[in-house]
């Protein structure tokens, strides 16, 4: 009997600068599905004054040879200016923003607020029985905060996905 086999994968963060033209996001996202690559998160926004160029950050995972293929396939697209594999390139920072809604009263509510302070989350909305926290950090920090809130009345989570940048003075 034949079974489908899986290969060991590693996580990579890619930043892609592209011409801000119609369909470019579909082209990039579609490239991933068409060739069987994974997208863990994807963020996009234009980054120039004239709105001509966008920066896309994709978190993906796959075996090293596949990551290399993803890089090459992305660079092959005409509207793509530059692809940087932050994980490959070295020391970099990653940040993500999350909105976390928690409902509760009494001790649970006090504890949620106390933990939010520990995590330096901001309260951006409140009722007598709920908070919406705003939290930034690397994805691991957000995972931990959400896990704690789950015990204290978590209602809803929204996350932006990762944006990343190389450390140091130079552009990547």
């Amino acid at each position: 009997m034949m079974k489908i086999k899986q290969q060991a994968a590693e996580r990579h963060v890619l930043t892609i600068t592209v011409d801000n033209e119609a369909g470019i996001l579909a082209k990039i996202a579609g490239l991933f599905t068409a060739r069987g690559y994974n997208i863990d998160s994807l963020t996009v926004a234009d980054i120039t004054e004239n709105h001509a160029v966008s920066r896309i950050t994709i978190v993906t995972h796959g075996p090293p040879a596949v990551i290399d293929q993803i890089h090459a396939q992305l660079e092959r697209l005409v509207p793509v200016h530059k692809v940087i594999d932050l994980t490959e390139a070295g020391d970099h920072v990653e940040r993500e923003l999350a909105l976390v809604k928690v409902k509760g009263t009494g001790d649970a509510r006090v504890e949620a607020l106390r933990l939010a302070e520990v995590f330096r989350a901001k309260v951006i909305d409140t009722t007598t029985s709920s908070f919406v926290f705003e939290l930034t950090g690397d994805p691991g920090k957000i995972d931990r905060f959400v896990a704690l809130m789950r015990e204290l009345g978590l209602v809803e989570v929204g996350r932006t996905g990762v944006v990343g940048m190389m450390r140091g003075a130079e552009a990547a």
Partner: protein
Amino acid sequence: MSEERSGASILVESLVRQGVEYVFGYPGGAVLPIYDALFADTRIRHILVRHEAGAAHAAEGYARSTGKPGVVLVTSGPGATNAVTGIADAFMDSIPMIVITGQVATGLIGSDAFQEADTVGITRHCTKHNYLVKDPSDLAATIDEAFQIATQGRPGPVVIDIPKDVQVAVANYSEGAPQRVNRYTPTLRGTDKDIARAIELLANARAPIFYTGGGVINSGPRATELLRELQAKTGAPVTSTLMGLGAFPADHADWLGMLGMHGTYEANMAMNKADLMVCIGARFDDRVTGRLDAFAPNSTKIHIDIDRASFNKTVAVDLPILGDCTLVLEQLLAAWGDRKAQDLTEWKARINGWRARQSLAYPANKQAIMPQLAIERLYELTKQRNPVIATEVGQHQMWAAQYFPFFAPNKWLTSGGLGTMGYGLPAAIGAQLGNPDSLVIDIAGDASIQMNIQELGTATQYRLPVKVFVLNNEWMGMVRQWQELTYESRYSESYSDSLPDFVKLAEAYGWKGIRIEDESQLDAGIQAMIDHPGPVIVDCLVHKEANCFPMIPSGAAHTDMILYGDNVAGTMDDEAKALV
């Protein structure tokens, strides 16, 4: 000088500026303004096909046989979707092509309008690039960039989707090259370091092999000459993929024949035993490599390709050289200088040992025409004319590749990557238009030819003397062969039932029809085909159960080839069934 012109008129002017001679197309509602702009314009000749798939394949045949981009014009919705197979085919085989599709008016896009399809969405992953043009003032620059993208770097199809209102609306048009930013600059030359390293490897190899592909053909005739020069300097034997046939002369002492699934024994054995492989413009396709973990295990691999994404895709290479075949071969020749080649006597002796297996020697048959023989006779009787050969897809295609030798590029038109049945007849039509004085023959099978049979009418209309040579075995032969080899001869739906009378069909379209039923009629039938000044279908009835060997069976290594005479019928395990 600048003047106001309609989008349709700007499009036509832009095509003329690009030197377009022929447009292969089919009119419809969403391209009526463009057809009106083409009306009575003598600078561009429109070739009316019978189905949009035919237009795309005809453009491919034109492109492959002339080196110039093929241009297609079709309407929205079904016009565009019918062309998609040809677009995907051109994408896989790196054929330069511009496809202009009509679209419903911008205000109707997304409303499920009549004959609306999301052409840009549908073609996104089978084009090198595509556009939806929403303003006629963008048209000239878009078309200019589209031709650049289609023809430079690794060639490929580019779709330009033009809504009907954009064809009608006016914009300023000035003659001369449109102003635009150049955002496409493929790397064309290898680095000096890589070239030096390649020369060092080549100079020291004791068992080198050149494995060449369609990239050598795409790079232009100069690449073919340079390949022959480099081979002469190094003495290394040469094998080629299906797409690369013609880059190296088939009568050369160091020619190994095609490699891969239906390649020669000597080509595949030499690939397996080489100590240095120089891959030039090929991409380690699964039909070439066979089982990957057993592919050329002991060789250092150099890979010359213009597409970085081709490197390490399936096979890890030691030295990738990013660049155009012509320029990199020039660099290699310059760097080789007046070095002396290694003594390859021992390597050539091993190769001659493999050659002695005569893997293309097929069994004779007194009752029926062997299809291999039919191809051999076709070659013998047409070789003085230096013909252009197109094929459909299947057994006949492999037999043509094996038994019809090529000596020059751009003479061999076949659907390699996508394997599109129905490619050959329209491709032959496109090639005949691009090469009006050449003998153009579509070698076909009885099943494949029916996939775009309607294009017989196109050849009739434009008085194109194309020849269709059908190897008629009343089967989808390659499917039948695989069923025999791997499914214990359970011939599920592979019999070509209710075949038309191809002779009468030819006559119905104003073609000449010739039937060859017996070996004694073979030469005369082929000669009559050549001698007839107009288009001809030859219905050549061949051995019904002939199989195509040698063959690397599904999931096997280069060294595990099935040769003529081997006992092959049976089954295989699920892993092998799933592999290819």
